[in-house]
């Protein structure tokens, strides 16, 4: 399920990232924030009065903010812990 549709405050893991829809700088920054296949991720808050603003997520122990187009590129699944990378 795409991250921007994933329920808030439900722990999940990154299944895959569609890097091709992101610019090189965006992709690099997401990787530097720890977003990669298998990373634990949790959507915390949707900004904007109608929930169309940015998304705040917990990745590991770090909170980051991203826009909808970034969240749309990230596929998330729930379930057991991912195998160690």
């Amino acid at each position, binding site marked *: 399920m795409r991250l921007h549709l994933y329920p808030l405050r439900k722990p999940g893991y990154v299944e895959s990232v569609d890097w091709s829809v992101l610019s090189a700088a965006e992709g690099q920054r997401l990787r*530097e924030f720890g977003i990669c296949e298998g990373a634990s991720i949790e959507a915390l*808050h949707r900004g904007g009065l109608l929930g169309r603003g940015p998304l705040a997520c917990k990745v590991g122990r770090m909170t980051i*903010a991203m826009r909808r187009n*970034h969240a749309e590129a990230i596929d998330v699944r729930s379930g057991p812990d991912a195998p160690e990378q």
Partner: protein
Amino acid sequence: MTTIPLVALVGNPNAGKSALFNALTGARQKLGNYPGVTVERKSGRISLSDGRPVELVDLPGTYSLDPTSPDEQVTRDVILGRQEGERLPDALVIVVDAANLENHLRFALELIALGLPTILALNMVDLATRDGLELDANILSRDLGVPVIATVAVRKRGLDHLRGALDGLLDGGARVLRPARPDVGFDARRADARRIARSAIVAETPSRRLTAAVDRVALHPFFGLILLLALLFVMFQAVYAWSEAPIAMIEGWAAATSDAVTAALPDGLLRSFLVDGVINGVGSVVVFLPQILVLFFFILMLEATGYMTRAAFMMDGLMARVGLSGRAFIPLLSSFACAVPGIMATRTISDPKDRLTTILIAPLMTCSARLPVYAVIIGAFIPARTVGPGIGLQGLVLFSLYVAGIIGAFVVALVLRITVTKGKSSGFLMEMPKYQFPRPQDILIGLWQRAVIFLKRAGTIIFASTVILWLLLSFPKPPVGSTVSPVSYSIAGRIAGGLNVVMAPIGFNRDISLALIPAMAAREVAVSALATVYSLEANDDEAALERSLGDRLKGRWSLPTALAFLAWFVFAPQCISTIAVTRRETNGWRWPAFMVGYLFALAYCAAGITFWTATALGLG
């Protein structure tokens, strides 16, 4: 002669690196720029355990050695020994956030691989413990192959151990190199970081309790916005309320000094110069220092607590609508203190179009230099009346001026993004740091630095402008027996006469035109310029000397004129420093010229519309 060793503090943004730098160096810091770029260089001296001096440099935060902004590029170049004007550091202190170890270790591994003598400062261990994370520094040190020192910069914990570890690294001043490890690439470093972090964790609970709890309110779509607006409103009201007593003190000092000089010297050129040119001019600016410091206090607090990025998050929905990133909110908010650091802060915006747009609209944020101007006009023309529960009319007008600047900026940004800076925005990606209580000393150092910067402007640009203005206002003297006033007869009076042909239609008089010329140096010069004009003209009226500048304005300007003056200052780019820094940040005169042109056009239209509307409503 042995060169003093250079040690670089390096790490991810939000690791607490600057707090550690402040804790180690105190107020003994030097602020400058790297040559050829406009990235700030912060250095200071510290002593090792045996008294040997070391130069410490605080490098800009970055996530990797693959830069996406000018700041990050400087950090990489310094560490690789490629930065002009900087030596290769003799040692690195890598500062990591203990509560975010896995993510920060990836960059730390990249740095350690360079082979420079290195220490890892495991910072903010108190916050990590608060959030249920316990780490073993010894295990970490073994796995990384470098000393690991636990620190809490904001409480000065671990600093002696850090100095002791630096002793070992800088033995006899000789550089002790470790063999460089082959660079294993991003993915492998990430896997190593995860493994090492897992190994160092003694105990862990899954969440950051305090930050998560506060964010439920701060990032709530509705309550978060209410909180943000409430904070901004408190900031504006405090600018007046908290500054009242200090302002009275400064005014008393200026009056006493003026009286002393008047009593000590005979009437003549020297006394006129000292009283009207120097004391009156500089005093009229220094008297507003309290307001500026109150504003800076709030901005520094928002940054130090970690709330600043939440504000950017709340604003991103709106910012995106005008083609900007929520990340632009931070430079724009900084521009409320001063557009110069605000424009420089845009260096953290990677996308060139976002960055240029933010630079071009930054002067529309109501900078602290406007406060002296607004305070005099509002104090003189707006009744000190309460218009609601705890809402003063004067505070409300000030708030309205801020809002006018913001709305103007957003409209301009929207227009720019579909014209001169069009193109797809690359988005908004930001780390949101943990909440923490700021260290009072860090706030004080920040306030001190900004006070010094402001007073230097008052002491140089403004003082020079005041003296030049005094000369223009004082020469040539009218012949004995002439009925023409001294001001009208002066050079400045004649220049203002010419300028006023353009300005009269929007309600400005000759005195205003006269004040706008030196106010190009800095907005607050308008206050000292007006003080000088009216003070000089009061030479032949002793009673007038007792009235404040505000009272004098009230007697000479109509309300529509005063309101038009306020509208002019919302938009007009009256700040040579802002124009200069724009040139440096955009590497040429093209964009500064564009900025000056469009802002003056906006100011003229705004003042005109205000004057004509107020006149039509019968406010005159």
